[in-house]
């Protein structure tokens, strides 16, 4: 084994220039692939993470009809008993009971359809850090009879802190929900919909407005460890009335996003595939030249008694060796950079930032540091190097050693 390594090393460096070029191409490909994959996987993680944290939770409790028809009538009872279980659940990072209701908001002649979110202010802050986003007035408290507006909505309605808005919508059991509320604070959230179409109100006030008493639309649970989903789902199934209420997991609540990710990921893989195919041909050329220019010594080795499969093993070994060196150097170069940008997401500025905001995404590029995809690059390069040696191997088996030694070939 050791001598095989030494021999492979010596053979690789017989043509320094060629080896440098081959290595450079592998290193380049691994770096590009690592960044592309890192950004791609990082953006998926970020999208899902944001969606889970700021809206669906890992799991959510809701009425069985609510997911398809988000009305007050499809709300669920939020009992003290359930609240106690949630409060004592050590597996939760936080949980948020919410009322979601469609309303018309109007001030003077300006009217717009919005979603009113009735929430516990502290829990909401834990969830989306809304407090620090307040740019005017102050953050709401659970006893308030007031609302918080996004800055775009506020400027559309031409209201400021202390002004009154009118909310009109439909409450539980078809009752008319109507009320006037002062604006307590105005916030600026990086996602467009938050600024344009959301109105926050304390949970108790919302329950009163919509005649919900002790009912809520959903309770969203974010776990400390995503791995606990199964047992947490089971726990809450046993605590709710499963004839009317269900426990949904994040996958079922983010289907559209997941399928968008899946198709994007597919194209991402194709891109990487094309990149590696180009590199694969480079490796192939190198290996082929390495065997063809050593025709004579290979023939001598076989003439004096070396079996062709042993020679082939040596060639594969050399090929894998080059590939491994390239892949390792590539990863060594890219890892610190990837790691740095994973800790310091790259902010997106200018027009592109607005595109992100319009898509309800935070305008940053996040990059994944999951070791899996980096190890995968290493594996892919090794596999390519083996595939690239198939034809040269076949060539060796077909060598006409007598004529090569005679100098006729």
């Amino acid at each position, binding site marked *: 084994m050791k*001598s095989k390594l030494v021999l492979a090393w010596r*053979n690789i460096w017989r043509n320094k220039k060629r080896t440098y070029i081959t290595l450079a191409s592998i290193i380049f490909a691994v770096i590009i692939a690592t960044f592309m994959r890192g950004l791609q996987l990082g953006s998926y993680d970020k999208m899902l993470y944001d969606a889970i944290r700021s809206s669906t939770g890992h799991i959510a409790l809701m009425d069985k009809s609510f997911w398809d028809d988000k009305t007050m009538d499809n709300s669920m009872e939020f009992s003290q008993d359930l609240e106690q279980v949630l409060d004592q659940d050590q597996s939760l990072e936080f949980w948020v009971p919410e009322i979601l209701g469609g309303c018309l908001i109007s001030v003077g002649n300006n009217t717009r359809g919005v979603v009113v979110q009735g929430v516990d202010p502290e829990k909401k802050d834990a969830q989306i850090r809304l407090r620090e986003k307040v740019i005017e007035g102050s953050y709401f408290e659970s006893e308030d009879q007031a609302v918080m507006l996004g800055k775009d909505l506020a400027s559309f309605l031409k209201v400021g802190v202390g002004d009154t808005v009118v909310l009109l919508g439909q409450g539980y059991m078809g009752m008319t929900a109507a009320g006037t509320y002062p604006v307590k604070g105005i916030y600026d959230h990086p996602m467009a919909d938050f600024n344009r179409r959301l109105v926050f109100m304390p949970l108790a006030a919302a329950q009163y407005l919509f005649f919900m008493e002790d009912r809520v639309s959903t309770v969203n649970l974010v776990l400390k460890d995503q791995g606990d989903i199964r047992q947490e789902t089971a726990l809450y199934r046993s605590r709710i009335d499963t004839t009317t209420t269900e426990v949904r997991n994040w996958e079922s609540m983010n289907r559209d996003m997941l399928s968008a990710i899946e198709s994007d990921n597919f194209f991402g893989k194709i891109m990487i595939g094309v990149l590696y195919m180009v590199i694969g041909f480079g490796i192939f050329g190198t290996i082929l030249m390495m065997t063809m220019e050593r025709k004579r*010594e290979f023939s001598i*080795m076989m*003439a*004096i008694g070396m*079996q062709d499969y042993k020679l082939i093993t040596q060639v594969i070994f050399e090929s894998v060796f080059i590939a491994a060196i390239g892949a390792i150097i590539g990863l060594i170069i890219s890892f610190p950079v990837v790691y740095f940008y994973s800790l310091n997401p790259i902010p997106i500025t200018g027009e592109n930032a607005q595109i992100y905001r319009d898509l309800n995404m935070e305008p940053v590029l996040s990059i994944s540091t999951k070791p899996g995809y980096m190890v995968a690059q290493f594996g892919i390069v090794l596999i390519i190097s083996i595939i690239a040696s198939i034809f040269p191997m076949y060539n060796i088996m077909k060598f006409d050693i007598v004529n090569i030694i005679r100098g006729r070939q």
Partner: protein
Amino acid sequence: MSIIHTHNITKTYNPDTVPVHAINGVTLSFNEGGFSAIIGPSGCGKTTLLNMIGGLERPTTGTVEVNGETINTKSKRALTEFRLKNIGFIFQAYNLIPVMSAFENTAFIMELLGWPRDKIKSRVMELLEAMDIADKAHQRPNQLSGGQQQRVAVARALSTRPKFILADEPTANLDSHATGNLLDMMLKMNEREKTTFIFSTHDDRVMRRARRLIKLDDGKVVDDARS
């Protein structure tokens, strides 16, 4: 005692297009411990005959027997195995593996056969000393003269004490001093290790030292003289 027999062997190249009858019915025997030279004009079939004896090429008709075993019907893999275990080869030039030192080249066959490390080491040094190139043990072939390279090739061919050594014009690329030197070495090993040598040559100096001269012309044996 005779260890190699060829029975009326022929070799025809390109039988379907432009047939070249390289060997036309050769029947020969070689005894153990011999030092024989195959001679004749260029193109008379010396290399072809050696290759068939050594299991590198198969005769078109006839048989080659080594130690009573017919070798021309063996599979490719079995022939390789046969060459590894029975024959030492020396070619005209570029015998050695460029990335290996003289030591490593000499050790090559013993390593293929899986000899223990210390046994390989002592055998290599013994041979390199006998060939008078022990001081060059760690040089690569491109740091050796042509004669030195051929001596390493002889050391490698002798290393596992094969039944016989086939050498195809081993001195063709050497000057007369190096040729004399190499012949001395080969004769010494022929006497010391009782190794059978069969080689082809054009070279008068080689012919003079051989104990048997087989003359080929047009693929046939025209003279077989022992001294």
